[in-house]
């Protein structure tokens, strides 16, 4: 079976320093399975951050539109620059980043923790440990083997009890009809949401699954560009879109995507797989976006041993938006 993941994850942190010494930070995660490469993102960031010297960071729309054209397909680099501009602009104004994004609609959100793909017994042990830490939402990674996946969900449900919220992420591993059969059998275990049951480019398959099952069906790998989100919403192929700011090209694009979803009556969730810098940035988006309607995976930074960013912690399974200027976290390098 092909798997992704592993023990290390490369990322870049962009620092933009103003004439007065204020610093804006942006995060670029490297997702090879989404087309990123370490060298490609590095070259893009070094080339284009250099062009920002002398620019006014409040001109986010102008700068981002320019970079969106020349960095087409390089969403990780676009995101880091876009976020650093927002952070610096907010710090110059002395306000939290959410104030630039429409203000607060919520101050906190429950955190979904991801249960990495393993033998069922190990996934159960990880779930129990996280429940003891106060988490009450989980995303169970599946591998497309119906028998094994049903066993994973059944054993985790039996171990954590009925009060815990369970979701699953198939990472494109199912054919539509098998996804429907499997999700119907998972109904007895109270699975509330399934992320990306079928291949990313099989939008008709996604729509077929969405119409056939009780749980919410969500697009992630299908929804890595705002143009794709527009298409998915137009055909109402899913109930929900998972937005990852690092992968979509920044906060500006995430807000456009959320507006598209709102018009189409499709829910939004958000996730972060990187440093606290990425999670805190995403939390400002979540805090200022009204159609985020479910828990979000914003606690995965806790799995890293050497995150260089501090100032964000989950308490009792819930994350609160930082209230300091900008993103509100600190870089310690």
């Amino acid at each position, binding site marked *: 079976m092909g798997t992704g993941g592993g023990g290390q994850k*490369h*990322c870049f942190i962009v620092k933009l*320093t103003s004439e007065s010494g204020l610093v804006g930070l942006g995060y670029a995660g490297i997702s090879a399975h989404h087309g990123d490469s370490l060298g490609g993102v590095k070259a893009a*960031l070094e080339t284009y951050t250099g062009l920002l010297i002398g620019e006014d960071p409040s001109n986010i729309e102008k700068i981002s539109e320019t970079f969106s054209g020349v960095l087409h397909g390089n969403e990780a680099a676009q995101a880091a620059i876009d976020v650093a501009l927002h952070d610096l602009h907010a710090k110059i104004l002395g306000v939290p980043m959410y104030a630039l994004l429409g203000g607060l609609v919520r101050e906190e959100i429950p955190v979904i923790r991801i249960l990495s*793909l393993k033998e069922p017994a190990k996934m159960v042990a990880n779930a129990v440990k996280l429940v003891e830490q106060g988490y009450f939402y989980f995303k169970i990674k599946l591998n497309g083997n119906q028998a094994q996946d049903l066993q994973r969900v059944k054993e985790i449900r039996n171990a954590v009890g009925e009060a815990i919220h369970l979701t699953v992420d198939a990472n494109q591993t199912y054919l539509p009809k098998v996804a429907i059969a499997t999700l119907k059998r998972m109904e007895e275990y109270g699975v509330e949401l399934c992320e990306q049951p079928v291949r990313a480019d099989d939008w008709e398959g996604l729509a077929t699954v969405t119409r056939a099952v009780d749980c919410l069906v969500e697009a992630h790998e299908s929804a890595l560009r705002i143009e794709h989100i527009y298409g998915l919403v137009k055909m109402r192929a899913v109930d929900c879109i998972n937005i990852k700011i690092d992968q979509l090209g920044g906060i500006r694009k995430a807000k456009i995507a959320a507006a598209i979803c709102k018009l189409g009556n499709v829910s939004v969730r958000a996730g972060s797989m990187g440093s606290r810098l990425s999670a805190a940035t995403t939390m400002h988006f979540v805090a200022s976006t009204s159609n985020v309607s479910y828990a979000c995976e914003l606690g995965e930074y806790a799995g890293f041993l050497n995150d260089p960013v501090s100032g964000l912690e989950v308490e009792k399974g819930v994350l609160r938006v930082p209230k300091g200027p900008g993103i509100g976290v600190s870089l310690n390098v």
Partner: protein
Amino acid sequence: MKIAQTEVILKELVREDADWRWARGAVARNTVLSSN
């Protein structure tokens, strides 16, 4: 207020769980139907 300086920092984040995995569905499809 203008941008005076830029910097790009590479960082390798290390996971506590060295075997943190997810399925690459688009690469290797092993979907099977279970009879039970």
